[in-house]
């Protein structure tokens, strides 16, 4: 009996220690000549960072790049899609945001009947300072009628694409109507799956399968009022076609935002990694559903350091 008690007490202690250890942050350390750089990123960014990390570590074996959880308080680099005032950021790429719904949406036939322009997007997705703003607009036009029927889901977290999407159309995040989710933007796809009469918007890297290079079968991209060749590329469902037109042509309907690594201080190894990403690493961007920096941005990306 005494032995059983002892074992049980030890087991409890073991679990407690395990729980504590499960939430510990991994810190940068020098271990026998190898430098570890910790990087924090969201789900989509992780795939790109992993691609960069693998390629960089091959050519720089004395540097180890480790991805840490978003809950971890400290990391050498954090992949962000905003540049909050006062923080240092090096831009490493861009991402595009598309308005989407599920193929199971009961109003999809109405959505398909129109090419959605800028004002239509505003009517569908945004309200003013309160829900009943734009009452007159609500009742007019296809967008106005669908507005009442469709729920909008958007991300509430600081790194959500919501901020970029709202800002692109001249609004603030809290002016996106509908429901919020907390968590990675990836879960917006779950939200619209659960609530079929809803729409959202998301990073291209989430809505296309980067392996098959095709649009996820459950996702429907709202048809936008684009030029003929741009429309064709979007409707093709092919990621590379879409990337090609976004990197070579401009439109006022698809928000494109920079992503970058935010850091507090630059060690030589971190600087080396960033330099590599901005130049050699760009070849992985399209692969993982992101856009490259582009000629203008690559110069300004370096100057931000």
């Amino acid at each position, binding site marked *: *009996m005494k032995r*059983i*008690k002892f074992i*049980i*007490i030890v*087991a*409890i202690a073991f*679990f*407690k220690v395990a*729980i504590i250890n499960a939430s510990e942050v991994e810190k940068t350390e020098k271990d026998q000549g190898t430098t570890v750089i910790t990087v924090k990123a969201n789900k989509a960014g992780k795939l790109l960072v992993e691609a960069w990390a693998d390629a960089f570590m091959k050519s720089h074996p004395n540097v180890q790049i480790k991805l840490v*959880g*978003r*809950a971890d308080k400290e990391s050498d680099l954090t992949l962000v899609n905003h540049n909050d*005032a*006062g923080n240092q950021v090096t831009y490493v790429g861009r991402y595009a945001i598309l308005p989407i719904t599920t193929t199971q949406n009961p109003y999809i036939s109405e959505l398909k009947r129109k090419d959605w322009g800028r004002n239509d997007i505003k009517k569908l997705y945004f309200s*003013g*300072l*309160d*829900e*009943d*703003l*734009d*009452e*007159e607009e609500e009742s007019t036009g296809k967008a106005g009628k669908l507005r009442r029927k469709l729920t909008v889901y958007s991300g*509430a*977290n*600081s*790194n959500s694409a919501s901020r970029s999407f709202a800002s692109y159309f001249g609004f*603030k*995040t*809290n002016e996106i109507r509908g*429901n*919020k*989710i*907390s*968590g*990675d933007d990836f*879960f917006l796809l*779950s*939200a619209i799956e659960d609530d079929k009469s809803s729409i959202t918007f998301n990073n291209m890297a989430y809505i296309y399968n980067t392996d098959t290079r095709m649009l996820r079968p459950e996702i429907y991209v709202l048809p936008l009022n684009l030029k003929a060749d741009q429309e064709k590329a979007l409707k093709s469902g092919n990621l590379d076609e879409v990337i090609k037109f976004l990197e070579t042509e401009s439109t006022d309907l698809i928000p494109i935002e920079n992503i970058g690594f935010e850091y507090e201080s630059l060690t030589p190894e971190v600087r080396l990694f960033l330099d590599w990403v901005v130049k050699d690493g760009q070849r992985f961007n399209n692969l993982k559903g992101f856009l490259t920096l582009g000629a203008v941005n690559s110069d300004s990306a370096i100057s931000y350091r």
Partner: protein
Amino acid sequence: MKRKFLVIIASLFFEIGKLDAQTISGKVVDSRTGETIIGATVYTADKTKGVVTNYEGEFSIDVAKLPVKLNVSFTGYSARSLIVYDDEESVSITLNEKRSFLNDVVVVGYGSQKRTQLTGAVTTLGKDIISNSPSPSFENILTGTIPGVNVTTNSQPGAASNIRIRGGNSVNASNDPLYVIDGVIYYKEGGSLDSGVKGVGVEGGISPLSLINPNDIESVEILKDVSATAIYGSRGANGVIIVTTKKGERDNAQISYDYSLTIANTSKKLDVLNAKQFAEFQKTYFYNKEGFSDEQIEALGEGTDWQDAVLRTAITNSHNINISGGDTKTRYSISLNNVNQEGIVRNTGYLRKGGRLNFERLVKPGLTAGVMANVSRGEQQGLSSSSAVTYNGSPFQGGITNSLVYALIMPPTVSVYASDGSYNFTNPYEYLYFKSGSTSANPVHDLESTTAKSISDDILGNMFLKYEITPDFVLKASLGFDVENYTQNLYAPENTALGMAVGGIGSIVKRRLVAQQQEYTADYSKQINNANFINALVGFTYQNTEKTNLMAWNYGFSNNSLGVYDLEAGNGINATKPISSISHSDLYSAIARVNYTLLDRYNATATVRADRSSKFANGHNWGVFPSLGLSWNVDKEPFLDAKEKWLDGLKIRASIGTVGNQEIGDNLSVQTYKKTSLSGTSVTTVSNAANEDLKWETTMSFNTGFDLSLFNGKWTFVGDWYYKKTNDLILTVPSDVALTGVSSYTANIGNVVNRGFEFMVGYNPIHKRKQNLELSAFVAYNHNEFTNIGEGREYLDADESYYRHIKGESVGTYFGLLFDGVVQSDEDVSALPTIGGSTLEPGDAKFVDVDDDGKITQNDRVELGHSLPDYTFGFNSSYTWRRLDASVVIQGTSGGSVYNMLRRRLELASDSYNVSVDLLNSWTATNASDVVAVSSVRPMTAYVDSRYIESTDYIRLKTLSVGYTFPLRFIKGSIRLSATASNLFTITGYSGYDPEVSGGVDKGNYPNSRSFTFGCKLSF
């Protein structure tokens, strides 16, 4: 043993179970301000788990699994829900405030409060009204926009307007509200300084408020009832106006430059005789001094329009630049302004240059330091004035008060300029009053050559340290100061009306005021059990004020080149020695206030302030002023559930309490002496008799009201009813000269009551992102009366014969004879009452013989009206559509009167001066007028009569403004162009220049102007 074993097993399973539980943590903030929301409820959609945010707005909630839907709610905000999919990051929830004015936060004394928790009557001035007003003085912004606030505008540039909140409480103490600017209690007299030369001075003077730049103002709150004002104790009796200046927004650096150009003209001219009419008049009734023949009179035509000669088109240029911004620890705002405002009377105007700095920084966690400084210089070139003066041995009872009035009565047959272009100093009609030898005064020359300048250099500042021991418990210490050097220079050369009799007058009066204020407060807030909220404030304040005066003057200047800056050059004949004085007053105060809210529905505010003022007699210089306010948020009651979407907010409130008034002169309780001359010998006499019982005027007031907001803020209604009684009124009462040495002294006798109501309705029919229309209208009624003038008294004479303090009548009641028409040819004059022992003749003015004793004397005088209006009303509207904005303000009053002394002067026929065109209708044997008496000089009474107490009812289009904002994308800024018309039209029956007459008597007050302002504001 078995039990112990089971407990251990259970612990093990518990720990294992905890591995599956998810902890979601996050923060709830206001979407507009970013401020954390304390006490918001966060609960799962199935309502099995719920928590409340802490003082940092943070929460932590355990849920069984993810995803989970959380609902968040807080009073005054729209509820929100969100689905949590992962717990890797802290959840950030923003709540949108419900659009209801009851959710506003208002600045109150020594703090701020949410309007839902207020128990007092507090009105906030709309930001659009502040930003769209073209006036360089913020007093004009208050006109017609706040129920219960009556502003009588003084049209002279830079001069003080008369502002009353809910009527006047006092006769001898000030009726001005208290101003608090960024926490500094700002009180000082404006107006003229006594120049020392009897009856001669500078009219108007600089308003203390004109030194505040309206562009610097962020918000204005008007505290009207005792629950709101009691915290100011002895200074809160007349209401409090709290001005908060701009501080800068965090993470939003802004630079703006504002320029405006205003063109103004007089909105009205008075009708006086032209040259032909004047010459005919003189020939008919007097001596035809210029010897015109009838043919010459016919050829005279219009002659000289002296009003046009002294009035002009006035230009105002205003520049303002502001730089503001901040970050998480710092906020700053810096501004510079320059206003050059010409007056519509020649050689008058106001120039202000100033700068303001607001800076605050979080020095260490919890410790904030800040400084505010306003530096300004105001220069006003005003009208020189005279009242009852003796020139060359001839008395002149208040007839010609300034150069504007003199111009009105100048004979139109006399030209402004001589044939060689120099000033014309020849006037065959002028008597010795304004004539020396062959040289007569010329009002245009008087305006251009007379210096009547007021200069104010002012530094108003405040420094504070605020320490948050905990977020609930805040200590604050502040030091405020106001240093003002105020100068009035008067110089009238020997060939001007004022200087003629004595060979030129020069005087300088200087006043220096230094006021210091220290405040120490401790503020504690606590939310207990979700149901109870308590906030307590205690503090100590000390203010001391020192004023020094210096006056010097001289006469008889042979050389005018240095003007007032060479007083020594005067010949000194009849000039008395320079005078200097000093006065000092202290005010010590202890303050305490408790706010309590139960269930977010029932609010109570208890306030007490104890003041000790040096202005009152020993033993009577402490005053304790308590108040209690209650309010009930009816819309939060279960029977008016939140599901009733048409009702946003309904609050009923009531308050009762006592405040005091200590704004009287210094040293009134003590015996004071002055030097004077008796038969050529210098003697010392009593100037003020002591009153060892002199104490505070106290005002007890009761207020009840409601605030109602409907249909998501589309309709708002605010109503108040109030009753105020001022006791121990400080009045001047007659005394026995043999005992006291003076004919009157100051005592606490009498009561004044103000009671009335205010009602305001607001309508916001369009509230969209790109289009907004707001309308609001109000009406306010105030009844003012003396309920007690002293034991056994029914009345008390005032300093002026046309006023009397009468029991049952209003403060400022006019007292005079009742005009009863004109004696006609067929009337029996023997049956009419005599005047001054003389029997009336056809054409004379008749008056009602009230006491029926057969003669018209002072005993036939009756109440003729009162200066305070019964009703004030206003309407304002603002509209924005995309980049276009427009606003309008309409205001008016009803029930008030004014003594039109100027009209009385203009209806006084004489052989020297011009008169009103109304005298063309005066009684003659062939024109049986019953309105205008005969124009020849006849026996008349000196008492004012009902013809000259006129109604000042009016309605005015005060401002009409349109603006358009162009974006400037290349600098991420904008430019707004605007056009504003002020005083576009006025509908009134008043015959003078303008029915808004500051001071209750129109002696020829500065005329109001109609103006057009074009503005340009660049922001980025």
